[in-house]
């Protein structure tokens, strides 16, 4: 549908050849400088993190972090992958939960957001409030836990990882604000042409909302990908641990142990080192980073509403 529409970068190139106003040049270079600096502060710690994961433990302790491993060592990764089956199984769990959760959540949120964005719906504000209220008040840990475990029987069940994150009201309202920018006239004309509400939503609204869907979809996926908290609550079988929980368990145990080391009488076995923590972080973020460039293509400016109509 947007094939007929020339992509914006192309247009820019054409324009370049004609003339580039000084004001744009100023903007372009100032902007690049700023974004470049921001990017650099984001990139350097990441490089240090990767470097630290390949650095000898004692070296980190005495020299701190570096951009390049001071004393190369792959011990952290060897330790981490000593039981590779655990890690791969955890990857599997995370993939299933992230995949299923993102798909279901995106469908649920986009549909609800669309309906709530329809200004001709009389009770839309009241219903929005009904959802919004749950972000202010919730039953609290114990009550939710008892309800999910005892009444829904979700202990050691992957649904317990999916359900709590399925419906994020913040995303719902952000999505609604994206949907609200779709002109009501388009929807009206489609309805006059005889399309039912469901068809309007699926065939007209969803394609128009692509950047929003990509954004919210990415956010939901990240939430599932990064979630360890629900696993901590609801999963006690190690075979069902998602990746982040497996790693969180190791990292936080070390940290908490250090904190309570003075109170317990027991001398506890070795704690994972700095480099191991960093290696875990690398392992955990790797795959989702690979997904990001694919999502990015939906953020290219120039999808026009007019083009869809035609």
């Amino acid at each position, binding site marked *: 549908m947007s094939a007929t529409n020339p992509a*914006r970068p192309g247009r820019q190139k054409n*324009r*370049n050849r004609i003339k580039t106003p000084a*004001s*744009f040049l100023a903007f372009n270079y100032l902007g690049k400088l*700023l*974004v*470049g600096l*921001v*990017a650099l502060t*984001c990139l350097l*710690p*990441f490089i240090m*993190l990767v470097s630290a994961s390949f650095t000898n433990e004692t070296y980190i302790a005495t020299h*701190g*972090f570096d951009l390049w491993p001071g004393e190369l060592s792959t011990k952290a990764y060897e330790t981490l992958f000593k039981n590779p089956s655990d890690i791969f199984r955890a990857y599997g769990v995370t993939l299933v939960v992230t995949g299923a959760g993102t798909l279901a959540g995106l469908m*649920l949120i986009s549909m*609800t957001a669309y309906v709530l964005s329809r200004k001709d*719906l*009389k009770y839309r*504000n009241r219903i929005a*409030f*009904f*959802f919004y209220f*749950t972000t*202010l*008040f*919730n*039953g*609290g840990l*114990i*009550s*939710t836990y*008892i*309800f999910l475990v005892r009444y829904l029987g979700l202990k050691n069940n992957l649904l317990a990882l999916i*359900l*709590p994150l399925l419906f994020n009201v913040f995303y*719902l*309202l*952000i999505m609604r604000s*994206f949907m609200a*920018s779709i002109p009501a006239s388009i929807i009206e004309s489609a309805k006059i042409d005889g399309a039912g*509400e*469901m068809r309007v*939503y699926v065939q007209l609204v969803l394609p128009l909302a692509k*950047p*929003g869907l990509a*954004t919210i979809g990415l956010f939901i996926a990240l939430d599932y990908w990064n979630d360890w908290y629900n696993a901590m609550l609801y999963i006690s079988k190690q075979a069902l641990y998602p990746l982040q929980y497996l790693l969180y368990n190791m990292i936080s145990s070390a*940290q908490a142990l250090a904190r309570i080391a003075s109170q317990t009488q027991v001398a506890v076995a070795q704690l994972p080192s700095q480099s191991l*923590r960093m290696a875990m*972080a690398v392992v955990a973020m790797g795959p989702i*980073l690979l997904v*990001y460039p694919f999502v*990015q293509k*939906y*953020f290219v*400016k*120039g*999808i026009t509403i*007019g083009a869809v109509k035609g």
Partner: protein
Amino acid sequence: MKQRNGFLREMRRNRTLYAMLLPAVLLAVVILYIPMAGLVVAFKNYQYNLGIFDSPWAKYGGFDNFRFLFISGKGFSITLNTAFYNLFNLVTSQALSMVVAIVITEMRGRIFKRATQSVIFLPYFISWIIVGSFAYNFFNYEIGSLNNMMEALGGARVNLYGIPGAWVFIIMAFNCWKWVGYNSIIYIAAITSIDAECYEAADIDGANIWRKIAYITLPSVKPTVIVIFLLNISRILRGDFQMFFQLIGMNGQLFNATDVIDTYVFRSLISGGDVGMTAAATLYQSVLCFLIIIAVNWLVKRTEPDYALF
């Protein structure tokens, strides 16, 4: 009677739309509203063998569990601190994210665009635990990289861990850094949704880049900005526990400037605390947030009715 008819007519008229809301409503009722009954535990003297509903009421008409928040006169200052940090961090990080988003969408250079957009997203994946160890390695007096650099440049070493005021800005900077990629995606998506025809028309009129940003881009992202601000106002009294805890930890020297409700509660209940007191603290945050958001939403509704949350 008349209203009831109105209700039925509305239901009949938009029955498909309301049916589309049904899955979300059911889900919210089941996993969010039903457990809400557990809020009552904040007013109970919780007994493990009796459970939430059968436990006896707490002293002082049920309000005993709230007393630890106010007893030492800290309640007020940590509440203010929390609100201050959230507002300050919200404004700084959203402003930066928006500027970055605008620059990224408008500037030239496809590869630079894509690369920076990906890179600024990296910090989101670095968990606060790891950020915490970075911060210590960077800021500490004896071997911290910052002090090493200062010294190399001829300056004196500074013990930042003894200067509480500095941490207001350090926390702000870390917060901006961590969320710039994530937040800018929302703005990029919003800008992407702007009808390209608007820009073309502006180009034809000979508008320069600054005018285009001021008259097209900014007004178009306004709804998104307002939604994000409103959503964040509704959690203005909930501190980002992990961020504060991992950056500040148990360093009492810095608490005056950096304590938020969540860290205060955590420290106070490390031992001897109970389920009821945790619930009481959460309820206190919820009620205040509720009152604030109702007030703010009312104001928005009076001035810009289209942007109200509910």
